[in-house]
Every structure is written in C-alpha cells, then in structure tokens.
C-alpha cells in the first residue's frame, strides 16, 4: 500500500517534470546563443567597445564603462556621424511604415473588389499573375528597382523619356531618383526631408506590398454573404453606398491585423532599404535598423551600436503593445 502510494507520487512528480524535459534542449541552446548574447549586448552598451577591444572583450584593460554616455550621445546627436539625428530617423521610420500601409491596404482592397466583380473576364489569369511580387525575394526586388531608378541607364528614366518623346519633347529625362537631396515637396513632413529616394522606395515597396493585402482582402470579401448586397440593392442602395456600408465594415476585422502586420514588416524592412538606397542620400532614407547596421558594419562602434539596438528593442516593444491593443480591439468588435 505504502509502496504503491510512493510509486504514484513518483510517477506524478515525473509527469510534472515532463514539460521541463521537453523545454531543456531549446532553452539550453537559446541560453547560450540567444539570451546570453542579449545580456552581453546590454552590458557592452554601457562601454566604449570598439575594434581594439575585439581580442580581449570585456577583459580588455582599456575598456571603459562609460555609463549612459552612448545612450545620451545617440539621443542628443552627439555622435561624430554626418547627418545623424536620432529623432529625425525615428520620425522618418514611423512615417515610412505608416505611409506604406496607407497605400498598400486601400489598393489591395480596391483591386480585390475589382477582381471580385461577377462576370469579369480573365479573373483567374489576373489573380495568378498579380501574386508574382509576393513570390520574388525582397532583396531581388530591391536590387532590381535600384537599377530601374538608375539616373543614366535606369528603366524609369527611359520610360519617361519614351513618353516625353511621344509628346514631342526631345530632351532625355534625367531624374536623379536615388541621389537628389533636394526634396521635391519641401516641408511635406516637418523635421524630416522626404527626398526623391523616399518616393522611389515607396513606388518599389508599393509594387511589393499591395498584392499581399489583395490576398487578405479577397479572403475577407469571399466571406461576405451575397444576400446582403441583394437586399441592399432592392432597397435602392447604390454601388458606392454598398461598398461603404457593407463591404468596408465587414472586411475591416480582417484588414486591420493585416495592416498591423504590414506596419511591423515595413518598420524593420532592413534588406529592402539597405539594398535599394543604403539609407542615402545623406541618410535621408535611413531607418533605425539600417543605421544600427552602419554603426556596426562600417563604423565598428560596437558599444554605441549595442546601445542603439537596446533602444530599438524598446521602441519595438512599445509598437508591439500598441498594435496588440489595436488588434485586440478589432477582435472584440468583430465578435460583438
């Protein structure tokens, strides 16, 4: 009797321990290659870690703990880097992400609605081909568009030349898409000049971004009962009234999480920005992650870069908390 009790207790303990056994491999490895480096990063963010400390690391005799100096330097723009202002980069980064979503979502919805028209010819072909931008890797998209926007040999200027020639102009179009620093619309975004490179990136990323939104919107459109539209048209509602009063409210629960997803993706779109403009001209298209990358890869200021990464981490945390709230709020609406 005692023995049996003991055995069941042992089995119970074993069962309680089981989930931890399953967690051991992942936590062991993440402890070494993920958590420890992240802690290490926080430590070196308080030091003046540079190339000469690479060999000995924290044991290096000249390594100094400089307290919050790196953080203060970043916020006050005291870093000896040309054209760097943290708050301008931050503002541009948010603007970049928001303006992308602002265009991608309505375009995706609109095109999904067009393709949802009953009796439209060639629907399937259009759908199959419109999905192509999603399939191409972003680094390829960015490099290809970079060449398209080339001042001398790029397809965009050649395309515009072809149009102006058609209208009788003889001049060759030479727009400096990626290198012109003078913003085409001065003061459009107070505090952060939007150069032509920004608009070029918007065009390229628009090409890349709307098809995904169209996929999501199509899914949402399919789930709207057709009778709603029939009832509405019997009551005499026009097409646009139906769109605003039936379509928009009913696809909103699907589109808001998609927009949030698009926002977070655009916010940290490293490879695309780095491959297309490298943050230029004069850091006008630099986003937080590309700047952090330049700090490590080109300037080799590991301490400052670590501080910068910690700052990005907290910005991402704030963004996550806000977007989470938005997503949850829309979920509640859709359930109610």
């Amino acid at each position: 009797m005692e023995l049996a009790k003991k055995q069941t207790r042992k089995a119970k303990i074993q069962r309680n321990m089981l989930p931890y056994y399953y967690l051991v491999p992942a936590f062991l490895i993440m402890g070494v290659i993920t958590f420890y480096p992240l802690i290490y990063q926080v430590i070196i963010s308080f030091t003046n870690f540079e190339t000469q400390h690479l060999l000995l690391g924290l044991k290096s005799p000249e390594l100094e703990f400089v307290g919050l100096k790196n953080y203060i330097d970043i916020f006050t723009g005291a870093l000896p880097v040309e054209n760097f202002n943290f708050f301008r980069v931050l503002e541009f980064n948010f603007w970049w992400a928001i303006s992308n979503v602002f265009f991608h979502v309505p375009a995706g919805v609109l095109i999904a609605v067009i393709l949802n028209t009953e009796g439209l010819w060639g629907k399937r072909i259009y759908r199959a081909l419109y999905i192509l931008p999603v399939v191409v890797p972003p680094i390829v998209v960015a490099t290809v568009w970079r060449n398209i926007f080339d001042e001398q040999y790029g397809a965009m200027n050649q395309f515009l030349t072809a149009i102006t020639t058609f209208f009788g102009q003889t001049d060759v179009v030479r727009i400096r898409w990626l290198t012109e620093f003078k913003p085409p619309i001065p003061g459009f975004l107070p505090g952060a000049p939007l150069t032509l490179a920004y608009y070029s990136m918007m065009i390229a990323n628009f090409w890349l971004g709307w098809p995904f939104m169209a996929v999501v919107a199509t899914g949402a459109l399919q789930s709207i009962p057709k009778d709603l539209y029939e009832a509405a048209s019997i009551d005499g509602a026009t097409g646009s009234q139906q769109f605003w009063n039936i379509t928009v409210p009913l696809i909103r629960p699907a589109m808001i999480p998609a927009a949030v997803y698009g926002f977070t993706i655009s916010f940290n779109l490293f490879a695309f920005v780095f491959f297309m403009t490298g943050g230029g001209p004069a850091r006008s298209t630099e986003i937080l992650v590309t700047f952090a990358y330049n700090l490590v890869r080109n300037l080799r200021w590991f301490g400052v870069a670590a501080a910068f990464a910690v700052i990005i981490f907290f910005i991402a945390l704030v963004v996550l908390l806000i977007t989470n709230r938005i997503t949850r709020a829309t979920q509640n609406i859709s359930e109610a």
Partner: protein
Amino acid sequence: MSTLVPASTPSKGNPLVRFLNMNTSGHTSGRNLPLWRQLLLQIVCILILCSVMFPIMYIVTLSFSSKTTRPSSLELFPKEISLVAYQQVLDHPTGNPVTFTELLRNSITLSVGVGLVALLIAVTAAYAFSRFNFKMREVLMVLVFIPLLMPAIGLATPLYLLLNNFRIVDCGKDITAFMPLFACDEGVRGKLIFNLRDSLLGVGIAITAGALPFAIWNLKGYLDTIPKELEEAAAIDGADANQTFWKIILPLAAPQLAVTFFLGFIGHWQEFVTSWLFLSQPKDYTLAMTLYNMTGQYASSIPWNRFAAMAVIVALPVAFVYIALQKQIVGGLTTGGVKG
C-alpha cells in the same frame, strides 16, 4: 467545386487558394456585367498587370541579352534569347575568387542547415508550450518570444563579438592553440587558422539564434490546433506522454514541420545582415551577398545582363518553393503566425 457550396457560406481554406480559385460566377443573381463596365474594368486590370509585369519583364529581358553595355533604351520583351549572361554568372560570378558552385553550396548549407537545426530544437519546446500546463509557463513563453523584438542586427552584434573569441591559432613549432581555452605562449602571435566568427558555422549559429523563437512560435501555433481528443484516446490506450509525442503529435505535425522548414529556408536564403557582417573571405560568400555586390557603386564593372541573370537565379528557388507550397505556407502563416 465552389458551385456546390452556397455562395453565402464563407469558404474555408487558406486565403491564397481562395484568392486564386475564387469562382462564384455559378451564383450570379442574374445580373450581367454591362459591356462598358466590363471593358472599363478590363482596361484597369490590364494597366495593373502592366505595372506588375514591368520589373519582371525588364529583368528577364535584360538577363537574356548578350549586350554587356548598360541598356540605353527601354526593352521589356527579349529581342534575343542569349544565355551568355547566365553562362558567365555560372562560370565566374564576380571579380572575387569564388565559383558559382561554392556560392550556391554556401547558401544551401546555411539555409537548409539552419532550417533543420532550428526545427529539431524547436519542436519539443513547442510541444511543451502547447500541451502542458506548468509553473512558469507564461514567463518562459514570454522569455522565448522576447528575442523576436530584437532586430536581426541587435542579435548579430553581440554574437559577432562573442564568436570572435573562438579561434584556432597555429603557434608554430607544431603547437595549435584552441582559443579561448588555450592560447599561444606569451608574446607569440601565431597564425590564425580558423575564426568561428569568420566562418559559415559561426554565421549558422548566429542565424539559428534568431530563427529559434520564430520556429517555436510557428510550431506552437499549429500544435494548438491539433485536437486534444487524439491524445486522450492515446492515453486511454495506455500510451505515455513520450509515446504520444512521437507516435501521435509528430506525424500529425509533419506538414507544419515542413512548412516551418520552408519558411525558414525562404528567409535564410535571403539572409544578409549576419553573413555580410561576419564573413570576410570570398570563399564563404553567399548568393545574396554576391547579388548585393553586383549593384551600386562598387559594381561599375559588372554588366547589367549578368546582374539580371544573377537576380533571376537568386529569385528562382524562393519562387519555386513559394508556388509549390503556397497552400501550406499561407495556411501556416495564418494558423501559426497570426494567432501566436
């Protein structure tokens, strides 16, 4: 198929399939599209199609061109089908002393290796989070997902510094030192044979560090959707938790394991942040790094037809995987990713 389903039923399945196969025309309410609207919409659709195809046709045309000079006028349809550019890329991609085979091998080693290792490590943790209720579950889950907030460069920087300590040094006199455990004698500089930071293995470790949380997240999301009744039935039949995991859960999760692997593959194939930071020797370069090397200010000597051929080559495996597995990938993203 959709003709059997009443139009009012929200169609199930993944969004991409619905996007591609949507055909509710069997349920027209009798309204026909007036011709003028049909034509108007066709014009709009064709304009959109032109904008979608523009960069694709441009780069494909360029890659089939034999001209090594930069394009002087816009061409969107190949006038010739020349494979010279592809041949040159396969033969000698850049000015660096590295062959295409080596680049390809490096890219495949990294993307497949990291994908498999991350999967192997993640699956048991995902199972534990999905199926067990234990003390600290919430805390540990938050802990696992915290690294997802860190941008790739934020994880790459400390790993760069840490992995840089692991070196093999030839101290001369047939002595080899494995740093940081053993160093050469005081004053002897020695010759660096191997630096973990400057190797594919080091890059692989660094990418795995970032890939693990995502793999756990993705798999947990899927395992949550496997009904508990199956395990309960297995338990009644006398299976213990380990048997349930190996015999019931793993086989059921196999499709999602594959999806997670291929999502990882698509991501790691394009990996640039870590490899560009870590690697200094051309023999370790990946295809993504080479593509970057072929544009911009450093690439004035590279003909654009060769760049275009390289772009097509880098894009093809991803496009292929995407198209072959579109159903699973989009489904996987929505079951695993979004709901978390």
